[in-house]
């Protein structure tokens, strides 16, 4: 390999790692679930050595993501989105506002613009990333992140989206945003640029922590299988809140239905999804073959697999929330005063948080069909029945959007050469570490707990014969249904099937309970 191609290859590798590191820096200081543990406690990982900035373990979400920057020349746009419920509207929409837009780009030029060797580029990138890290803490959005990260009950959520394009801001939006551009880093065939448009002030959003609801941890938070798996995932760590969105008083107790989630189709584009790259709209094929991670591979996301038990605790048969919803919509808290029509979780069922009973799942789906569909924006996803695999992929509260990174053979061949570099440049990216999928463990959930939960749900469902004691207990423990569950579109035929199975089970259990009485 001649010198020029080595130089080129190394520059490409540096650029690729730079993009990944930038993404890590931005998300770990805006998305609470990305935040690693105490930094002093972890061993230095290979990813830490890149740019000499140890950020701790990359979220497992990174590993399974397709880092779509197969084409390094495409910009990486990271939107930090503030999600709030609309005031005064019980059935209101969730308002999303982009409070920061980071654009990281390798502005490639065929003609060699500078004589910068990859070593100098690397050294300058180190400094740029330090500045980026410091800057993340100086911008207004940092305090919103801190509120969320502290686990305070907040009336907002922070979501994110990563893509190669972005819907341009409206004029009014641009007027309230400020632009900051870092001084670019020269490379041999271009330059690395990082810039951000950010809202100067977040006072308009009245970001407050609610004192009403103590934060709780939803240990078994799961995203919705029926929602677009490629959407930006809610970024907050699963927090068990008794009221979810109701804590802020934005949704009245009379509203049994979760607020509709509207998203513009461009907002959660599928470009961030591995499987959707074929129709991401750019029509750009990459120069390197992407490594795709199908959700069916049960990516090793740490959060538990889907548990509908959480959803059972919701006031209404809340359909599986869209991924972007915060976990707090799925509060399984037994003392949730907002839950009224769904039974409280039994202790057993709460413990077996890794359930993914198909029966329960099907029940949930039927409920969803009753509640109705809501436009979920991008509709290119298919609702798959194989939810366990997909769900596990969605589980990570830090999970989506999926941005994996593809590996090319050319990188592997550089390993030995890079090891020889005398400046502190780490070598190639490690192979992705995989761990046991939580899905396989979830299969061992207690059947009894599932049936018990089912029974409670059936008992409190309107058409069923209601046991007064059970109802009052459920109502006492659940609050007015101001959940902010989200709807998603379902095929009618699927829903009917589910309803039939639901009805069948209902009859079965009713008949059994008649015997026992």
């Amino acid at each position: 390999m001649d010198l020029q191609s080595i130089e080129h290859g190394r520059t490409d590798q540096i650029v690729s790692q730079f993009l990944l590191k930038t993404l890590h820096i931005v998300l770990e200081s805006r998305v609470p679930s990305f935040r690693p543990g105490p930094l002093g406690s972890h061993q230095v990982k290979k990813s830490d050595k890149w740019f000499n900035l140890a950020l701790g373990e990359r979220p497992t979400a990174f590993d399974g993501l397709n880092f779509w920057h197969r084409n390094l020349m495409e910009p990486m746009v990271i939107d930090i989105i503030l999600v709030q419920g609309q005031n005064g509207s019980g059935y209101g929409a969730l308002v999303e506002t982009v409070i920061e837009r980071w654009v990281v780009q390798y502005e490639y030029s065929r003609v060699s613009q500078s004589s910068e060797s990859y070593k100098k580029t690397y050294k300058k990138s180190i400094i740029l990333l330090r500045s980026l890290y410091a800057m993340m803490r100086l911008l207004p959005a940092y305090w919103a992140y801190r509120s969320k990260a502290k686990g305070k009950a907040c009336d907002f959520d922070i979501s994110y989206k990563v893509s190669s394009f972005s819907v341009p801001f409206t004029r009014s939006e641009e007027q309230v945003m400020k632009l900051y551009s870092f001084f670019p880093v020269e490379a041999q065939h271009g330059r690395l640029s990082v810039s951000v448009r950010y809202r100067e002030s977040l006072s308009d959003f009245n970001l407050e922590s609610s004192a009403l609801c103590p934060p709780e941890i939803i240990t078994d938070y799961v995203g919705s299988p029926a929602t677009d798996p490629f959407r930006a995932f809610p970024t907050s760590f699963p927090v068990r809140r008794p009221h979810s969105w109701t804590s802020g008083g934005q949704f009245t107790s009379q509203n049994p239905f979760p607020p509709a989630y509207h998203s513009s189709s461009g907002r959660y584009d599928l470009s961030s999804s591995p499987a959707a790259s074929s129709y991401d709209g750019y029509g750009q094929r990459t120069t390197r073959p992407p490594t795709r991670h199908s959700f069916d591979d049960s990516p090793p996301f740490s959060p538990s697999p889907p548990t509908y038990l959480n959803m059972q605790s919701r006031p209404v048969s809340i359909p599986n929330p869209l991924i972007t919803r915060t976990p707090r919509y799925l509060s399984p808290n037994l003392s949730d005063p907002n839950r009224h029509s769904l039974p409280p979780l039994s202790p057993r069922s709460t413990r077996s948080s890794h359930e993914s009973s198909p029966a329960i799942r099907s029940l949930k789906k039927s409920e969803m069909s009753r509640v109705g569909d809501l436009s979920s924006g991008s509709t290119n996803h298919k609702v798959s029945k194989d939810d366990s695999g997909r769900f596990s992929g969605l589980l990570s509260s830090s999970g989506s959007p999926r941005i994996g990174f593809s590996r090319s053979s050319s990188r592997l061949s550089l390993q030995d050469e890079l090891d020889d570099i005398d400046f502190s440049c780490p070598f190639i990216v490690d192979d992705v570490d995989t761990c046991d999928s939580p899905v396989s463990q979830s299969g061992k959930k207690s059947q009894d707990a599932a049936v018990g939960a089912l029974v409670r749900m059936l008992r409190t469902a309107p058409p069923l014969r209601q046991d007064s004691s059970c109802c009052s207990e459920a109502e006492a423990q659940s609050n007015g249904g101001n959940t902010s569950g989200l709807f998603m579109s379902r095929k009618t035929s699927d829903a009917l099937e589910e309803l039939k199975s639901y009805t069948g089970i209902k009859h079965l259990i009713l008949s059994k309970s008649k015997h026992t009485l």
Partner: protein
Amino acid sequence: MNCEVCQLKELDVEYFEIREVLRCILHTIFFHRALGLVRPKDVDLTLFEITYVQCGDAELEKKVDEKIDQFIDRVEKHPNKKNQICLSFFEVKNKQATWFTHKVEHLYWEQWYINLNVAHHPKPHSGKSHHSKLVLDPGESASDERNARRATLESSLHEVLFQIIKFVNEKKDHIPPIPNKEGVSFPYEITISSSSDSAFGMDMFKRMLQTGHPTMLS
């Protein structure tokens, strides 16, 4: 090699704010000059809504605090003066040892001047009559004034941090090769001076001569 000099915006601080302000500024600079492997450490200021980043080196933290203590002592001894901290990074050039000299030359390649204007406030225990009057009669306007002053300082401190980030990114060519060590990558020194010193200007002048920065010699 040229020496890049950065004069940071002057800050009007009160006595009790010195430590936090200096820690914030110095550590932000050091974070950009500790180019070996670091585990960044976020630190929240208590007096301001600002979070700065340390490079996580305990030794450096200790040295910085020592210097700040020295600065505070100096401020106490020389009140009502403009005070300056100069953080310099240099390369060590060993001059050939002769019978008479064994000099080690410092070749400065970067200098940061932190300018603080410390408002003179008598210490709580001074017990002077005019001071006690001040204390006993704060009034709403004084409190508003204090808040306004605090907000201005916070904003100025923000500006200084932005100034540092801008400078470190625009000027990179003068940085020597990064040695493979943890903590601050380059030898540095922190010197303190006040406007009343005859040496205040001389120190700066000396360094300018040493570094041979062309613009400084005009």
